């Protein structure tokens, strides 16, 4: 089975609480409108789109933080679309997620070592302490940081803790949701280089959500372009950048400001 994920007609509707009337339920908005694609084992898939495109929602549906309202999602051949939380829980060590804002995704009152070891303990991994320290080594952070709190670390370090936590369980798949968006150029480069190395070393399959096409070009083997909840283009990276077929893809590419004053950027 070389397809890690098989997604068929995935749709997801969420209640729009900003338009909820005083009495009665909130009106529903369709965020994902029937998406179909596959993720091969070992691929690095880029998921791009503007705000409101549904890329974050898609990511959360893939790791079943959200339950799809229609269609199906299969992971390693198994249909996980409507499994209950109890049924999913043992599967969770196979797919992990790294969040965008480490200040929000790292519990501010837990130490770094505890943050990384907790998922290991939940899944009964032997010697979680050692595995956590190994994970720190893997992401290039000094072991002393295990005793610190998140707010004592820099932005780039915090993001690497998030990565360490995700890889510690040795999952098959990782979803990275805009993980370099808040970082300055140097920290971003460090994280991207790290990610490339980890994917190669650990044989990971990665889905990388981003709005930055330059980063996607660098990292991903295949790109999914989302616009208003639909896939407008699904192509290997080189092909997408050389010959973008969808108008929206072209719009995204044209909008990128290259660090080059001579770029014709009308």
């Amino acid at each position: 089975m070389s397809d890690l994920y098989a997604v068929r007609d995935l749709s997801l509707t969420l209640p729009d609480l900003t338009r909820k009337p005083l009495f009665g339920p909130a009106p529903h908005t369709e965020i994902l409108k029937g998406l179909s694609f596959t993720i091969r084992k070992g691929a690095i898939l880029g998921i791009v789109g503007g705000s409101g495109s549904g890329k974050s929602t898609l990511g959360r549906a893939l790791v079943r933080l959200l339950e799809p309202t229609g269609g199906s999602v299969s992971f390693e051949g198994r249909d996980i679309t409507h499994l209950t939380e109890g049924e999913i829980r043992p599967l969770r060590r196979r797919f992990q997620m790294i969040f965008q804002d480490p200040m929000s995704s790292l519990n501010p009152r837990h130490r770094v070592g505890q943050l990384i070891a907790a998922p290991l303990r939940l899944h009964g991994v032997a010697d979680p302490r050692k595995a956590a320290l190994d994970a720190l080594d893997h992401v290039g952070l000094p072991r002393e940081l295990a005793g610190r709190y998140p707010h004592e670390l820099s932005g780039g370090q915090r993001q690497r803790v998030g990565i360490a936590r995700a890889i510690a369980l040795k999952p098959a798949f990782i979803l990275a949701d805009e993980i370099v968006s808040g970082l300055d150029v140097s920290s971003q480069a460090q994280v991207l280089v790290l990610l490339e190395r980890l994917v190669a070393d650990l044989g990971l399959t990665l889905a990388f959500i981003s709005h930055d096409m330059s980063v996607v070009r660098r990292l991903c083997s295949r790109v999914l372009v989302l616009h208003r909840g639909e896939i407008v283009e699904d192509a290997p990276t080189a092909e997408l950048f050389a010959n973008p077929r969808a108008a929206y893809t072209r719009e995204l590419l044209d909008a990128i400001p290259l660090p080059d004053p001579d770029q014709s950027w009308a």
Partner: protein
Amino acid sequence: MSYLTITDLSVRLAGSPARLLRDVSLTVKSGEVHGLVGESGAGKSMIGKAVLGILPRAVEIASGRIELDGADLLQLPAKEHRRRIGRFCALIPQDPLTALNPSRRIAPQIMNRLTDILGWEASRARKRAAELLDEVHIPDPERVLKSYPHELSGGMRQRILIASAFAAEPKFIVADEPTTALDVTVQKQILKLIREMQARHDTAMLFVTHDLGVVSKVCQSLSVLYAGKVVEATDIATFFRAPAHAYSRALLAATPKYTDPDASLIPVPPTVIEAVRAEVEAADEGWRG
């Protein structure tokens, strides 16, 4: 003709020798856009805040001179200082969500600049507010003027903030990472708009950003900052073609370019960091504060 001249500006945490800005010197000519680039925490925003007099309470100016249109701002009495800033300067902030008052409609928020600073009467200010929204290409300005901020998109809000900034015909604007919170397609529109407005009103501008791509589109010159110290100041063409400082070269090497995907993405090397840190420490030793 220089509109803003900053000479040896040092800023520190009140009551502490730790400096946040170290002997910063730069010049912005009338009608020119000068970029401030660097990592987070390098002090880029701090410079703009020092000029506008909106430094956080725990932070104070330790030494240096800020000359705006010939007048030494730090020597002026507080009231005159505020008057000058209010009359001739403006800010385009980073986050359009928090910069607008959520409980007031748009119209009074733009009109305030005209009625309070220029002393215009309400009807004239209202008319000008509609004109400004038109200038920033907002369709149906009347409807937008009557709306509340939460009813509008991020891009729309940023346009409104740009309109507000240019409302009183300022001679100088600080743009503090104005497109960081925006989508890439919206960012392009906003950057073009800023360029258009700045050229039309001939406003001098300090443009703070960490994105070298953005800098190359908007600025004519720039200063590169590390830990509050200017490590290189030059014009745009020179910076991108032949940057003088190792740190500048390292920043460029760390920036991904989609037209050149196989170029290796090199994080700023530790040797460069050490070298620039040594420069900073040397500067600190020579400083008596």
